[in-house]
């Protein structure tokens, strides 16, 4: 996260005037919130999976995990709710130009998102605080609306971003919006790939994130049923979804070559519109040269049009002022995202192979080390993806229609709000991590004497002891 937002800060610094701190602040707060949003979208499903197994099989371990994860969910949902609110304010405080011009267009999906945010928060209140007090299955069902509205809410928010990438569904005359086609605003062209890409990313972040905690425990020798169950409940869903995510991402890249050719040119270092475009792996583009990159001839054309002769539009198709800044950042983030996605795919394939051949988890420490970093890898990949889509759209905020500079506030003092936000978010980020670590310590200590919700009561002696 800090790497990604550092990169974004750097990218923002390429702009000028008020736009710089405004973009840095938006990037930092969005980059922070998006991690919590991923857990908000996907963690409820994983918790419900654990509770389902716990209820169905009377499995104490799964039930205990569900109970503990929902406590983690409580902290993350609360912090996510307030950092999400900050973003709502920032839409107006940092980008009044965008809202003045297009608020009535992009507000529509935000309104729908509001409905799902309500349902999420209401049922989170019931689910998180109804443990033990609601009958088992009633409690489980009270969590279902959280998972469903998490997904539908994500669809609504991503709709706004998709609209910014491929705007449509409205007419304007004399600088004012004259008509709006709500359906087209909600489902712009890029929605088809952006929506599933983000929702799958959320499931990967949450699933691998959960798994990595228990993989780290297993690496440290805690090879018990509790740790293997915790690992499996996060890892298996995420590993199953990884190939789908790679497929969606591949489709998205091909669509971007068509929908936002300049962004794609930056992602793949296509300086001139041409055929037989090579694929660059890594490498830094400076003044027409790519340093430290591996060049594979024709492959980019092959990936885009399934033929080496496919023509790809380069960034020379637009004036220098209309090209995104720091193409090397966009390219490296894109490569990092793809590379990490492939690494996660490998981890899943490894587990699948061993599971199929030997009916157990792989034994090598390398596998568990991979598992332990999988959560971080998923987060970094997701952040890199956002850098690609957001920095790659520059200098536009609404692609081809409004520049980020036109959208930015004309107020001074953005530097001050940026500094304060950095301090506050630093404290909150550190406190959140500290609290999660503290919960883990407390749970390790309490393992013996904690009663399992919806399970048999602990022996009387244990209860007296505690």
């Amino acid at each position, binding site marked *: 996260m800090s790497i990604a937002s550092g990169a974004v800060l750097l990218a923002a610094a390429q702009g000028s005037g008020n736009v710089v701190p405004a973009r840095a602040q938006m990037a930092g707060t969005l980059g922070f919130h998006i991690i919590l949003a991923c857990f908000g979208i996907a963690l409820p499903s994983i918790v419900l999976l654990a509770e389902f197994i716990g209820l169905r099989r009377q499995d104490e371990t799964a039930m205990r995990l569900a109970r503990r994860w929902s406590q983690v969910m409580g902290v993350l949902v609360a912090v996510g709710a307030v950092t999400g609110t900050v973003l709502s304010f920032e839409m107006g405080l940092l980008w009044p130009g965008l809202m003045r011009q297009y608020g009535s267009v992009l507000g529509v999906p935000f309104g729908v998102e509001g409905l799902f945010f*309500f349902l999420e928060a209401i049922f989170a209140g019931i689910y998180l605080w109804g443990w033990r007090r609601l009958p088992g299955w009633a409690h489980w069902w009270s969590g279902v609306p959280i998972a469903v509205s998490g997904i539908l809410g994500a669809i609504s928010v991503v709709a706004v971003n998709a609209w910014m990438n491929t705007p449509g569904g409205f007419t304007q005359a004399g600088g004012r919006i004259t008509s709006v086609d709500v359906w087209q605003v909600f489902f712009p062209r890029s929605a088809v790939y952006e929506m599933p890409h983000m929702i799958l990313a959320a499931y990967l972040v949450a699933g691998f994130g959960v798994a990595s905690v228990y993989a780290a425990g297993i690496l440290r020798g805690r090879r018990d049923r509790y740790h293997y169950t915790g690992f499996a409940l996060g890892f298996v869903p995420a590993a199953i979804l990884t190939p789908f995510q790679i497929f969606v991402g591949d489709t998205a890249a091909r669509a971007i070559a068509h929908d936002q050719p300049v962004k794609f040119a930056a992602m793949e270092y296509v300086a001139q519109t041409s055929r037989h475009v090579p694929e660059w792996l890594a490498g830094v583009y400076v003044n027409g040269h790519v340093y430290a990159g591996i060049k594979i001839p024709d492959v980019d054309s092959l990936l885009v049009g399934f033929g080496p002769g496919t023509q790809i539009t380069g960034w020379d198709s637009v004036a220098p002022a209309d090209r995104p800044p720091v193409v090397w950042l966009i390219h490296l983030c894109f490569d990092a995202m793809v590379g990490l996605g492939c690494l996660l795919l490998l981890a899943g394939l490894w587990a699948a192979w061993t599971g199929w051949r030997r009916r157990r988890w792989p034994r090598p420490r390398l596998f568990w080390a991979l598992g332990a970093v999988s959560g971080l890898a998923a987060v970094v990949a997701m952040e890199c993806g956002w850098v690609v889509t957001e920095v790659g759209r520059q200098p536009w905020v609404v692609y081809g229609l409004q520049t980020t500079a036109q959208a930015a506030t004309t107020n001074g003092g953005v530097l001050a709000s940026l500094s304060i936000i950095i301090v506050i978010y630093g404290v909150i980020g550190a406190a959140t991590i500290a609290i999660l670590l503290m919960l883990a310590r407390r749970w390790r200590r309490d393992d013996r004497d904690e009663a399992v919700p919806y399970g048999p009561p602990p022996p009387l002696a244990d209860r007296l002891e505690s």
Partner: protein
Amino acid sequence: MAAAVGGILLASVTLYAVLGGADFGGGLWDLLAGTTAAGRAPRALIDESITPVWEANHVWLVFDLVIFWTAFPQAFASVMTTLALPLWLAVGGIVLRGAGFAFRKEITRLSWQRAAGAAFAFSSLLTPFFMGTVIGAIAAGAVPADASHASQAAWTSPTAVATGFLFTCACGYLAGVYLVTEAARRGDRAMRTYFTRRAQAAAIVAGALSLTALAELHSSDPAFYSRLTGRALPLVLLAGACGLAVLALLSAGRPRGTRVIAALGVAAVIWGWGVAQYPVLLPGTGVTLTNAGATQATYVAVIVVAIAAVILVVPSFALLYALQARRVLRGGENGPWSVHHGSLEKGSIHDKMCARDQADPGKLG
């Protein structure tokens, strides 16, 4: 149709004020509850009342913002530009309050718990104040139509500052009245008396502040004053009557129904403001409900969203509050003051009910 959307916006602002406002008020009473030992009982009651519902109540704020920028984007951009500073301060307060509240539940060490609790309580005091100055500045006509820079004079005018104090006080008033009912429901006599006194004090201060604000408007903004005491008069009178009724019922020791009356009183103030200002959105400018930048299709979309909210969200809220009222939402063993803080709840009926829940095979599903 723009008028209907304006009504929807005002209705959701009202809901945020009477639901979210009470949660802020809870933080205010938490702040004023005194030392750790003396404040334990009121803090426990406040915590228990707010915990399962505050996030859901908070969503009204996000919903308000979204409707505002969707239906009236020009006015939204001007407000966010002119009043950037108090809005930033309110945002900071919102973040610290939510995070502080969530963290306090999980922390076990008392000193850290105090720090998180202080963040929660102080920001509960400051956030409504700054939000109040924003509303006061809008009502006072300090937001220009095409604002391009922030104005500190806009939100530091007497009207804006008075509105800020009134907001803070109204939050404390609502929370006090709600907490009296919560205490009565639990049969907790001590807390009932405790919050009755505080609710009464807040009611008197809020009433005095309202009258001061009216007097101030009479001299600073006679046109607005005459509309408030003209076509909005029934609502102004209703607000006053509600306040007096709550005071009388609390004095008589009959808290039943006071929550609804108190909320109605606050709602009457907000709608009084709306009616007095209608159809102008930014007083002192030509910006009205109909020319603030949206199209018919957008209005229709907002109305559809509002209808969906009535169908989906209102019953869900009803379920949440019903479960909260039946004290189903207590989170098992992890209440902050019940377990980690020692003896307050140990061995109480809750623990026994928990044990019974576990022992009852019928509840295992």
